[in-house]
């Protein structure tokens, strides 16, 4: 496969691969700055695309600090408040790094922050897994339209959208290439 067609049917590109790389580098630095170093940090990626994003941020932090950051994944399927309105699907893997999350600074990583309901489910899941000293949120895109009092601590890009639009994040690990696109809306 060559370059996927990111225009045309695939919608308008709002972040290309270089933009995504820059945003993640900035988030890595912000996390370090806010935390005053990599100490006590645990990164948890939310399935599906939060998981590779968390790994990339961890790699960015490791590059600066020289020490690896414990990184895991979190699946919130069973904690969702809309389970009843979808056909059931098998949950993904939840992998908590060996040191656990008790007393750690957990940074949740997701691709798009929208209604905030996924993050609410993630907070519930975390409280069943342990007691972090703090939980923070890093997202690649914040597209607004929150339905719950939730905000992100680190945002790659604030993207004002209409509810009728669709924001799609594609990553090399899951989709073959990096891009954030918007489709739909005004028709």
């Amino acid at each position, binding site marked *: 496969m060559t370059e996927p067609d990111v225009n045309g049917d695939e919608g308008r590109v709002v972040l290309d691969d270089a933009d995504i790389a820059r945003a993640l580098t900035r988030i890595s630095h912000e996390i370090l700055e806010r935390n005053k170093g990599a100490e006590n940090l645990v990164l948890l990626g939310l399935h599906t695309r939060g998981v590779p994003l968390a790994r990339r941020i961890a790699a960015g932090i490791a590059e600066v600090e020289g020490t690896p950051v414990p990184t895991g994944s979190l699946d919130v399927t*069973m904690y969702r408040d809309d*389970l009843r309105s*979808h056909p*059931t699907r*098998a949950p*993904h893997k*939840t992998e908590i790094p060996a040191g656990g999350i008790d007393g750690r600074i957990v940074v949740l990583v997701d691709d798009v922050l929208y209604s905030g309901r996924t993050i609410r489910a993630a907070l519930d899941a975390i409280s*069943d897994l342990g007691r972090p000293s703090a939980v923070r949120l890093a997202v690649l895109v914040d597209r607004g339209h929150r339905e719950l009092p939730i905000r992100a601590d680190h945002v790659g890009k604030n993207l004002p959208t209409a509810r009728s639009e669709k924001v799609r994040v594609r990553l090399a690990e899951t989709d073959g290439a990096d891009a954030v696109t918007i489709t739909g809306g005004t028709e």
Partner: protein
Amino acid sequence: MKKHLLSIDDVTADDIAALFETAAEMHDVQRREVKKLPALRGRTIINLFFEDSTRTRSSFEIAGKWLSADVINLSAKGSSTSKGESLRDTVLTVTAMGIDGLVMRHSASGAAHQVAQWLDVPVINAGDGMHEHPTQALLDAYTLTRHLGTLEGKHVAIIGDLTHSRVFRSNIKSLAKLGARVTVVAPPTLMPSGVGPWSARAGFATSYDLDGVLAGEYGPVDAVMMLRVQKERMSGGYFPTAREYTVGYGLTRGRLAMLQPGTPILHPGPMNRGLEISPDAADAADSLILDQVSAGVAVRMAVLYHLLAGEETGA
């Protein structure tokens, strides 16, 4: 996935894969300090048991509770059934209380199918007479898959009282769906009369000679599944003495030595130690009997989750 789980016929190989994937996650939850997941919060499940059970009922109860459902156990002893209420009236009465799922065990084959016709909530068959016990077969296959990596092309020997065994009837279906070869071994008196058409199928064989099967007459054995001699159904004089059964069909210390090292041993329980399985085999390092029990909770959580958590599909 279909609405009810009455038989292994109700699930496809893809459904089984999804159930196993979920069960693997549930297995991890079992090791957590907080074992609750909120997926079935607010749902009520009734375990309606017309036959005795320890592990199936308690593992369904634990599975439901770990998914945050409210689980009520009803056994026929001490219920209205002993006052002469019909099966139909009993199940309609308990569902009228507003339950979301029914787990049922009954001594009559087909009881769960019959009940599923009357109800519009999911019914899970936890054993019906000599017919099927689908969640047992799923947990057996799950345990074996975890141990062997895959069941595709593996050779599983199932030994014991086949005639009365719903575990066997569900297992041969699930093992076939997952691509395993099955050889079943029983004394002629305990070989089901309808086994003929099955044995004509590819990947399926029957034998009266356990030593021959273990020696590899039908190919190397990758797993051994012992079935319980159902003493409560043994009034028919199926074999002369218990001793004779053990000599012919028990997994004795001698037969244990015939297995390749590392060959997993399964038994659905409860075991008759010294009859169909020797203590040496039951407690052997390769015995997966306790793994089956812990897998039982994980697999039943997966079944409850897939049947009860999602959108109502009508039916």
